[in-house]
């Protein structure tokens, strides 16, 4: 008996009669003999709920969850309790894409509010109802820049972006006439003069520039002058930002960005082994009709009443078909719902507060590790909630005390990008970490170095 299949035998009989066949087999008689699968699927039979839960629980228990000082794009941030409760409402969870606006005003309005919140934190007025993640959002933004400048096929990409973003970009553009040119770092940041030299070299072939701040090492890039340089060259500036950093740090709009992107995981979602979260993207009004994906707009209904609806759909794949400039069909709606609830729940005061506390938490551990324990800081300068140090001992020696203490201490950039020096180590400290937890980190460090 399988609870999700609700038919009774009598009902099945009645239905077969209405159709005019004697058995369900008859409905598959058109499948050619040679490709019929003649035996049962080689998989275990169905199980009762409790047995399934037991098995899933066994696997969950095999995972070792730890006290997280590891970041690299996914962070351990506070999740207000209202977020999971409200996102769990089945009217949201079990709904489809709101193509019938009259019966979907709920999710449409939520997505309008998501777009509004992203507009506020980035400072750019036009946003969409989310993309798959921050890494693919980068490729969508680059596509927008490339399509905005005829014949320009070069994207300048900061060497300090997340290595997985670089890989995704290479995969996405590998078979197209697009060239990715890396802007090399100088001690953990990309300098303005590096950008200017690259713009001078490639001139009107440059469609856009992509930079991430805080960058992969956790360092804040100084983007003074970047907007002017990029715009003078006739290209677009794309800035990728950790959304919580925008509580206090210069917004993409203030830097002069044409497009802002990032990953929304820090806004009310757990790390969850990398997914799902959502990608956010916002842009200037001049690029509005190039924005990919689903977009919600305000309009009126037949009675002149406010109504929300999916709009600018002509650009979407299902209409443009092979002339589409993106193939994205869905968004990460439920993730965007969580993000919206988070931003509304914490409000402007909370958003600034949590941002400051990330700054303080990271600064505190960074100070102790560099001053007390004499670890060398790699990038120097300002960071957000993550920073990179040089480890003077072997990898194993460093990791073992943390392993024993149940702490995930951070990660080696060289694990994601083999061109990185092997002694670099990146540590994240969020608003969730307490003074006592920092003390445990310090002790493990002492042990590793001792």
């Amino acid at each position, binding site marked *: 008996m399988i609870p999700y299949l609700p038919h009774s035998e009598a009902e099945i009989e009645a239905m077969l009669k209405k159709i005019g066949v004697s058995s369900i087999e008859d409905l598959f008689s058109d499948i050619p003999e040679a490709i019929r699968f003649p035996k049962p699927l080689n998989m275990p039979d169905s199980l009762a709920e409790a047995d399934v839960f037991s098995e899933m629980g066994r696997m969950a228990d095999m995972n070792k969850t730890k006290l997280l000082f590891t970041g690299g794009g996914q962070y351990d941030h506070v999740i207000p309790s209202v977020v999971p409760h409200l996102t769990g409402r089945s009217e949201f969870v079990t709904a489809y894409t709101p193509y019938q606006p009259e019966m979907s005003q709920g999710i449409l309005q939520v997505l309008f509010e998501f777009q509004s919140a992203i507009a506020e934190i980035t400072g750019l007025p036009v946003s969409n109802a989310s993309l798959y993640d921050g890494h693919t959002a980068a490729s969508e933004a680059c596509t927008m820049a490339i399509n905005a400048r*005829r014949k320009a096929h070069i994207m300048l990409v900061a060497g300090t972006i997340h290595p997985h973003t670089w890989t995704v970009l290479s995969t996405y553009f590998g078979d197209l006439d697009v060239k990715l040119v890396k802007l090399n770092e100088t001690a953990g940041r990309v300098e303005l003069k590096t950008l200017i030299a690259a713009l001078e070299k490639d001139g009107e072939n440059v469609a856009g520039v992509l930079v991430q701040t805080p960058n992969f090492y956790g360092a804040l890039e100084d983007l003074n002058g970047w907007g002017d340089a990029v715009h003078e060259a006739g290209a677009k500036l794309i800035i990728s930002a950790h959304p919580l950093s925008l509580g206090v740090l210069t917004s993409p709009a203030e830097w002069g960005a044409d497009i802002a992107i990032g990953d929304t995981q820090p806004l009310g979602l757990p790390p969850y082994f990398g997914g799902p979260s959502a990608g956010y993207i916002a842009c200037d009004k001049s690029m509005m*009709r190039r924005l990919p994906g689903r977009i919600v707009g305000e309009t009126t209904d037949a009675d002149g009443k406010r109504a929300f609806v999916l709009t600018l*759909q*002509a*650009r979407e794949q299902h*209409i*443009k078909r092979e*002339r589409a400039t993106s193939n994205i069909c869905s968004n990460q709606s439920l993730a965007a719902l969580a993000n919206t609830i988070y931003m509304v729940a914490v409000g402007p005061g909370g958003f600034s507060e949590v941002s400051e506390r990330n700054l303080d938490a990271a600064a505190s551990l960074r100070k102790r590790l560099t001053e007390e324990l004499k670890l060398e800081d790699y990038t120097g300068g300002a960071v957000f909630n993550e920073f990179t140090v040089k480890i003077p001992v072997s990898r194993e020696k460093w990791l073992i005390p943390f392993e024993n203490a149940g702490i995930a201490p951070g990660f080696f950039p060289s694990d994601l990008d083999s061109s990185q020096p092997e002694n670099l180590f990146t540590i994240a400290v969020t608003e969730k970490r307490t003074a006592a937890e920092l003390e445990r980190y310090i002790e493990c460090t002492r042990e590793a170095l001792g």
Partner: protein
Amino acid sequence: MNVPENLKYTESHEWIRVEGDVAVIGITDYAQDALGDIVYVEMPDADLAVTKGDEAVNIESVKVAEAVYAPVSGSVKDINDDLENTPELINKDAYGTYIYSIAMSNPSELDGYMDAAGYKAFLEAQD
């Protein structure tokens, strides 16, 4: 369906009014009807060099996005600025609303296109 006599017509439902060596281009009544309410017209840059068959203009309605192809080679001469704020002019008067014009480099490219009678017959055969 409205099909004025003095124009040339393409199989992709563009009309052409020849003014010396300039081709003034719009879309037919049939095309605007098929598109539905037009919401946006994406124009080419002025002086853009085009080859016959290039996608020159993009017209968006609520449901559909359609390309308007350059019927002749040359360079873009004028674009209809009114369409930026009132794209619906095309729906109201398809033949009275030009979209853009091309200074032709090879007017003999016009030879293959249909006259009014030919286009009428073409439309009848479609349905």
